[in-house]
């Protein structure tokens, strides 16, 4: 990047903080959806008995 751009992007520490903060929050949201749906499936399977949690039954088949 040219110097002018670097100046715009980097000169404002408050903007840099905001960029970092927004990035982390969005990454956490994405991670929460990923893990959340897997955890939800595990819990649903456990509630119904067997299913995903019952790996021993699956292994013995």
């Amino acid at each position, binding site marked *: 990047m040219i110097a002018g*751009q670097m100046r715009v992007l980097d000169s404002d520490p408050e903007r840099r903080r905001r960029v970092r903060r*927004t990035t982390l929050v969005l990454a956490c949201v994405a991670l929460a*959806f990923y893990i959340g*749906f897997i955890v939800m499936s595990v819990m*649903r399977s456990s509630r119904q008995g067997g299913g995903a949690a019952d790996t021993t039954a699956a292994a013995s088949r």
Partner: protein
Amino acid sequence: MAEHTHAPAATSPAHAVHAVHDEHDHRPHGWRRWVYATNHKDIGTMYLVFAGLMFLIGGSFAMVIRAELFEPGMQLVDPQFFNSMTTMHALFMIFGAVMPAWTGLANWLIPMQIGAPDMALPRLNNLSFWILPFAFTLLFSTLFVPGGAPAGGWTLYAPLMVQTGDAFPMTIFAIHMMGASSILGAINVIVTIMNMRAKGMGLLRMPLFVWTWFITAFLLIAAMPVLAGAVTMLLTDHYFGTTFFTATGGGDPIMFQHIFWFFGHPEVYILILPAFGVVSEIIPTFSRKPLFGYETMVYATASIGFLSFIVWAHHMFVTGIPLAGQLFFMLSTMLIAVPTGVKVFNWTATMYKGSLSFEPPMLFALGFLFMFTIGGFSGLMLALVPADYEYHGTYFVVAHFHYVLVPGAIFAIIGAVYYWLPKWSGKMYDMRLATWHFWLSTVFVNVLFFPQHFLGLAGMPRRIPDYAVQFTDWNMVSSIGGFAFGLSQLLFPYIVLKCLRSGEPATGRVWESAHGLEWELPSPAPYHSWGEPPSEALIARGAAH
């Protein structure tokens, strides 16, 4: 009319400033420019070229499908390979062609339209792009492994998908990579729009393309990880003895469908919302009027984004979900027609009493408007539970979603390229050839997909390589339309390459009624634009909605 003949590139004080900046424009050369790219324009170009390549490969898979379906009986390929073709065609077109094309357009346009010098996270931008060639090389290579490419459909339904051969882990890994690329791209778009807007570029001054992408990016962040979660569970079912989706172990195959469509339906809007943005930019320019109802367009887009998360089970009416569930998902699906109708009426009202002209971008936008609406109406038919019992799993569904995605999303992408190409390249393309491209595409896309409505209503199932003889005639017509549509698309790269090689110089504004910050830059847009933020006066002029 286009002002594409004699005017100089720099026509305003802003242009003069950028002309001076051009002297300091330095860019890396050779392969390093592309491999280490952090410039949003370079990355946008790479995304668009990649999408074009995937469009050709995915299109060639479609040609195999239509060739096999030209007449009843098994002619060219075995059923397993046919199923692989339908699966790979969808995966390549959705994740390889349409989504990267939108990301490419976002990269090119969002910084220029909001007065930012680049995307907020340029290195992440490089990473999001370079994941894609590896993902698709891996996916493509499944054609050559024992057991063949995945053949369970793009929906990857369990437990069928778990029975895939050696291609299984490769497909799962490829999908994870595509998902990671999309999520990183979406984070970059949101961070850029939230933090990099020039002073004076308020949220309700942003161009509609930026708004639609902003909402699309939120959909991506919420939807793609869900797909990643679903395929991770498929992986553990296959290799680690879990039975999330295997009934014999106490799992539930229907749960996969719920999880998949919780991703899958917002995905449809991920593919189409940026198209709404593009059309909202093109129609006012060629109607020489401001967009009718700018704010309602923003709210309608947000409403569609929200509703897209509460309609997923309309894909699953025949799985035996409870009546209350069927009613809820039927009504919520029909509710989407309201904000979508707002958009269609707003575009129509924009054109009303406008001074219309029909350059190629406008033709593609109008093609989008008419034919996307056809896809929307057949979607409403499919939303009705009793009717869906008849239509589900037939060619009617194939006709419906292809009307939404081909003359919908893909026409909008082509229209966008024809609209902004002179700004990107500084050259005008052959408008006569582009007009031919539009008419050939429009005629043959209808020859290709409209008969599929009849086939579906007559009961022809989808995803089959052979069919009963009474479906022969319309399948022949559809295949002829498919080959002709495929051939006519070869005009597109020819027009673009001809433009880049020998196009006439374009003016800064290109189209006389174009509004927006990108049109305040000279053509071609400087390698580094908005190093100095645009003035508020310039922003106000560009934001004359």
